[in-house]
């Protein structure tokens, strides 16, 4: 029982920040992992000449997917549009950043747990990892800004939101460290 009492007296800010970091970390691991797969799949399966073959839209497939012939054809145009809008350097850059992001996001889940349990290294590690995630967002933002309107429309809103969230986590961890230092 005394152990339980000790645990519940751990800093409130660390408990909240930790759980939020875990929730976001779980989601972001999936988001970055999916982005890495997206770049790999599209790059690998684009025809070498960049010209897509005509859409194959059998009726039973359309019924199963719940789409029209027009939408079936659009699925090809959409992939081609995104591929055409990406400069040569973009898929590799995006894939590298996404893989780094996946690893950092996964680590942030562990850091979140450490914050909730308030282990001695937790707040310092939190500042480092959340800053790393914010840096990945900034680099992705810079990469996408240097493409064109198509990719900006696809990516920028999401990246900006993640950057703001990571900035809040960094500032939260810093504020918590300062509060502990003053106490």
């Amino acid at each position, binding site marked *: 029982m005394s*152990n*339980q009492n000790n*645990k*519940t007296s*751990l800093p*409130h800010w660390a*408990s*909240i920040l*930790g*759980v*939020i970091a*875990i*929730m976001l970390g*779980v*989601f972001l*691991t*999936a*988001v970055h*992992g*999916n982005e890495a*797969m*997206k770049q*790999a*799949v*599209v790059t*690998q*399966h684009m*025809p070498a000449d960049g010209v*897509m*073959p005509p*859409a*194959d*839209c*059998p009726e*039973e*497939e359309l*019924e*199963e*997917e719940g789409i029209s012939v027009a939408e*079936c054809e659009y*699925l*090809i145009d*959409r*992939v081609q549009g995104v591929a055409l809008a990406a400069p040569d350097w973009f898929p590799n850059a995006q894939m590298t950043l996404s893989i780094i992001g996946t690893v950092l996001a*996964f680590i942030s*889940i*562990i850091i*979140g*747990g*450490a914050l*909730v*349990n308030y282990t001695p290294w937790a707040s310092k590690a939190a500042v480092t990892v959340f800053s790393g995630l914010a840096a990945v967002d900034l680099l992705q933002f810079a990469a996408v800004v240097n493409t064109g309107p198509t990719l900006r429309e696809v990516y920028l809103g999401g990246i900006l939101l993640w950057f703001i969230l990571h900035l809040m986590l960094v500032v939260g961890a810093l504020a918590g460290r300062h509060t502990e230092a003053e106490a």
Partner: protein
Amino acid sequence: MQRQGFSRTAVILHWLLAVSIFFLFISSWWMMALPLPSPELQFRAFPFQLHKNIGLTLVIIILMLLYVRLRHRPAPVDSQHMTGWMHWMAIAAHVAIYGLVLAVCVTGYLSSAHTRWDTVFWWSIEFPRIAAPDEEMNEFWGELHTYAAWALLGIIAVHVSGAIYHAFRSDGIVRRMLRW
């Protein structure tokens, strides 16, 4: 003496399950927007196979988690932090999550089993065909898969809300699933 929290194995399996489930949701929305497959367009091949691999692995993970949870029960939560209705709601949400994860995985497999695509688990173990390709059965199980997945997402939202509620109260309940 009982542990205050869940065992380390249960904690690792729980978070592995969480990351995998979110990856499956997010990647499925993307892969369903890829061009329909044809001999020249194979964009869907890898993501669909990966989706099946992770889904089938989740069945193993959730059965392991269930075994570990039942074998190593943590000490009951202090009733001061969790009132009766909260306790029952938490139990109901957990049972629903276990049931729905299994339902989503099984219906997904059955839907896939009625297509012309084979299932090769992690590209190494070929699953025997349990049914001939059948468009109607594929659609039937596919729809159940989709509805079960939406229900799972809804119940996960309830589960996450509960966790955040207890984190804001800092009552030690969330910490039970965060013992690395």
